[in-house]
């Protein structure tokens, strides 16, 4: 069971508790010693009183013995009378030998307690008297304290024979008075000592409570200020000192953990708001800052320019030179962007090769254009990454708050549109946002939706462009080229929608459709007993990212039943470079099946020639730009010559694309090119029309004949040389 005061004591402050303990110990000691003192003093006083009374009684006994023996009452009275003058004597009784009252004396003063013998009559029997005497004897001690009188009973002796008894009853006032004084002195002493103890214990308890309270104060200070670097100074080497040590150890631990936590928090903060690669603010922070900037701009009626920067062909750099180089380039670009803007402007990387900048307090659109121009010129100098130099350009889109948009999203979207517009304008330029661009952008969105529908509804047709062997003049294969029969815009070429399909994630479906249609067509030609003609299909780099190229090719071949040797797959250089291990494996597998692998647009990408022999490539298709410029630029011609020579030594077939003139044809023939493709032979035409080429006749003869008429012997010589 809990005592009622326990909770109170338990909740007392430490100082009070310690004082209470010290005080209670001291008080107990004090009380016991005072009690001992008072008791002892009371005993001494009582003994003094009794001794006095006994001596008095003895005197009476001695002086009254003879009178008592001789029954002389008068003499006895004479003896006791002088003693009665004493103020403290209340009564004196003399009993004779028989035990009866012989003489008695009562003090005149009335104020005293009733005495047991007082009311005894003179004639009282010896028994009554004896009883009364016994009573006073028995109460001798207590009566001194309680009844206020003291009693002494002494026998009167004569010759050893008791001849009577004297009973003296005295006032105990003196005794009580002395006792009271003693008690008062004891109490006074107690009070004084108590006070001294109070002061003493108040000092003494500090020995324990002061260090503890110090620790408590330090703890409060630390927990309030969260300053875990603070330490407490140990005041002593006892258990409290150990407590201090423990506290310090704990603080040390907390401090360390706190530090780690802060570092992690800072790191997280960095991760959350900054791009780890370029250390520029990321999308989150940029949105936040732009939001604030817009808020400020709205209040102070200022303009804010939001600039969107996208590197041109960054993907190709990544694909051909590796992601590491791409990353280094991004870091360099970030560094350069920082040099253009003012300190109040923010440069951020939104992801990939997209950077954004906003400039506050832009006075006029011209200023914004100036900044954009500066940004574009930043890319004029090539980037030096280690040993290599890279030339990269950027397309910049600019929007202005509040003119082009009010919200962060709107501004960014419009900047993006402007940037796309700049890209559409041939890249490496900037473009200020225009409301019309938005329309254009929405056009694009519409087109994307149309494309999705077109794939569902099969609004595509394949056109085929024949490739002709330069020696025989016969069609060796046809390249399948997709055309979109747009219900509103009419027939659209691939450059209008392939990129859209790639961005829209529909390229794989489209490619599959192309592949299946082409294969079916090839089968149809076979069944029509035409000469076996290979059909070439372009595979998008995006398709390779899906990693199911082989499955889809096999599925198409399985479904159409086409001989794999009649299928040719064309991929661009960049597609070849990306994810090259996977690509290499898949292409090997496809080639093992008998499928011909061609590299399309060869010479435009950032290819390293070392890869060529590692890949299972059958054919290189020289990009049309080289063929186009071949006749005007000797450099281009040199490149063509080099490519052909290289392919030959690597035992690859060479196809020249975009051959439009006989000159080109002749030159290529001279160089030893294997096949040509281009308007010179035929534009891409539908299946029915291309089938006309599937004859044994020399489709180049007409052109060579024409050339002969023009240039005579040269052509003939060429033809002969080729033979």
């Amino acid at each position: 069971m809990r005592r009622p005061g326990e909770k109170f004591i338990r909740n007392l402050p430490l100082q009070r508790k310690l004082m209470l303990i010290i005080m209670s110990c001291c008080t107990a000691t004090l009380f016991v010693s005072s009690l001992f003192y008072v008791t002892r003093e009371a005993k001494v006083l009582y003994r003094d009183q009794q001794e006095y009374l006994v001596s008095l009684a003895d005197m009476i006994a001695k002086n009254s013995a003879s009178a008592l023996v001789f029954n002389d009452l008068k003499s006895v009275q004479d003896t006791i009378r002088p003693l009665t003058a004493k103020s403290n004597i209340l009564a004196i009784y003399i009993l004779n030998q028989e035990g009866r009252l012989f003489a008695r004396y009562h003090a005149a003063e009335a104020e005293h307690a009733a005495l047991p013998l007082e009311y005894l009559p003179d004639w009282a029997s010896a028994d009554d008297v004896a009883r009364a005497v016994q009573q006073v004897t028995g109460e001798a001690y207590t009566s001194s304290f309680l009844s206020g009188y003291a009693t002494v009973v002494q026998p009167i002796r004569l010759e050893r024979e008791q001849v009577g008894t004297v009973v003296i009853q005295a006032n105990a006032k003196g005794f009580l008075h002395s006792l009271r004084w003693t008690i008062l002195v004891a109490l006074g002493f107690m009070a004084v000592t108590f006070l001294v103890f109070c002061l003493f214990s108040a000092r003494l308890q500090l020995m324990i409570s002061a260090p503890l309270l110090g620790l408590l104060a330090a703890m409060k200070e630390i927990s309030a200020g969260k300053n875990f670097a603070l330490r407490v100074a140990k005041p002593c080497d006892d258990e409290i000192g150990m407590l201090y040590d423990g506290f310090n150890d704990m603080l040390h631990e907390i401090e360390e953990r706190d530090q780690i936590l802060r570092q992690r928090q800072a790191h997280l903060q960095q991760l959350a708001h900054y791009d780890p690669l370029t250390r520029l603010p990321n999308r989150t922070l940029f949105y936040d800052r732009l939001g604030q900037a817009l808020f400020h701009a709205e209040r102070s009626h200022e303009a804010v320019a939001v600039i969107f920067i996208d590197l041109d062909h960054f993907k190709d750099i990544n694909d051909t030179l590796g992601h590491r180089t791409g990353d280094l380039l991004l870091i360099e670009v970030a560094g350069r962007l920082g040099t253009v803007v003012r300190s109040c402007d923010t440069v951020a990387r939104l992801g990939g090769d997209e950077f954004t900048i906003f400039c506050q307090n832009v006075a006029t659109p011209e200023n914004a254009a100036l900044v954009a121009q500066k940004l574009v010129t930043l890319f004029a100098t090539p980037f030096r990454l280690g040993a290599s130099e890279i030339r990269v350009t950027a397309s910049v889109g600019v929007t202005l708050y509040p003119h082009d948009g009010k919200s962060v999203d709107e501004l960014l979207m419009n900047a993006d549109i402007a940037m796309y517009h700049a890209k559409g304008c041939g890249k490496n330029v900037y473009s200020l946002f225009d409301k019309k661009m938005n329309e254009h952008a929405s056009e694009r969105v519409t087109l994307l939706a149309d494309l999705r529908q077109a794939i569902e509804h099969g609004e595509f047709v394949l056109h085929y462009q024949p490739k002709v062997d330069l020696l025989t003049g016969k069609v060796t294969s046809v390249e399948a080229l997709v055309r979109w029969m747009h219900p509103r815009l009419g027939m659209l070429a691939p450059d209008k929608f392939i990129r859209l399909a790639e961005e829209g994630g529909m390229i794989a479906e489209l490619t599959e459709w192309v592949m299946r249609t082409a294969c079916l067509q090839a089968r149809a030609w076979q069944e029509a007993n035409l000469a076996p003609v290979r059909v070439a299909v372009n595979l998008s780099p995006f398709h390779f990212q899906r990693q199911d190229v082989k499955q889809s090719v096999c599925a198409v071949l399985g479904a159409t039943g086409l001989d794999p040797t009649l299928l040719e797959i064309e991929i661009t250089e960049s597609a070849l470079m990306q994810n090259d291990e996977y690509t290499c494996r898949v292409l090997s597998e496809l080639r093992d099946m008998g499928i011909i692998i061609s590299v399309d647009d060869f010479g435009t990408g950032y290819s390293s020639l070392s890869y060529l022999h590692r890949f299972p490539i059958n054919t290189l298709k020289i990009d049309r730009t080289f063929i186009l410029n071949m006749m005007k630029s000797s450099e281009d011609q040199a490149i063509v010559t080099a490519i052909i020579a290289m392919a030959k030594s690597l035992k690859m077939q060479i196809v020249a694309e975009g051959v439009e003139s006989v000159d080109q044809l002749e030159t290529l023939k001279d160089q030893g090119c294997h096949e040509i493709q281009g308007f010179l032979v035929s534009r891409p035409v539908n299946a029915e029309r291309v089938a006309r080429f599937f004859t044994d006749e020399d489709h180049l003869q007409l052109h060579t004949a024409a050339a002969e008429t023009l240039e005579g012997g040269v052509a003939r010589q060429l033809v002969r040389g080729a033979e």
Partner: protein
Amino acid sequence: MPVLSRIRRCCLGFLLPALLCLLLAHPGPLGADAPQEYQVKSAMVYNMAKYIEWPADAFSGTGAPLVVCCLGRGPFTAALEQYRGKTVLGHPLQVRRVQPGEELGICHLLVVSGVEKRYLAGILDQARRRSLLTVSDQPDFARLGGIIGLVEIEGRVRFEINVKAAQQSRFKISSQLLKLARIVREGD
């Protein structure tokens, strides 16, 4: 012997309380026949002896008996008999009846009672020579040359002391006694 001793012991066990009773009962049965007046007087004589110092040569030793001789007729002797054997200042009390003219050499205290006045002078003379403490209830005993005389005053027994006579007989009387007594001189 054992039978005898048992009987004796038995008698002792029986008799002792009885004797004690007899002794404690005051006045005792021995003097019961004596009248009340003599009871008081004999008690006074006995008690008086306690306050008197005999001459140094009165007793042969510390345990020597104090011989109380009674002269004369009357119940005084009988009343005194009850104090036989009691000690006074270490001396056991002996009570003797003596006849007039008898040698009083062995006496220490002479109680005279019921003696004719004409013999009194001779008795006192003899006592003085022998240094006896003389006590009597004869009228004017102290005035006649006796040392202590018992007189009745206002119905109570008092005593008179002839200090001169006491001094002559070399007795020292305690002041306690003198305080209670009436002091007389010869011839008063």
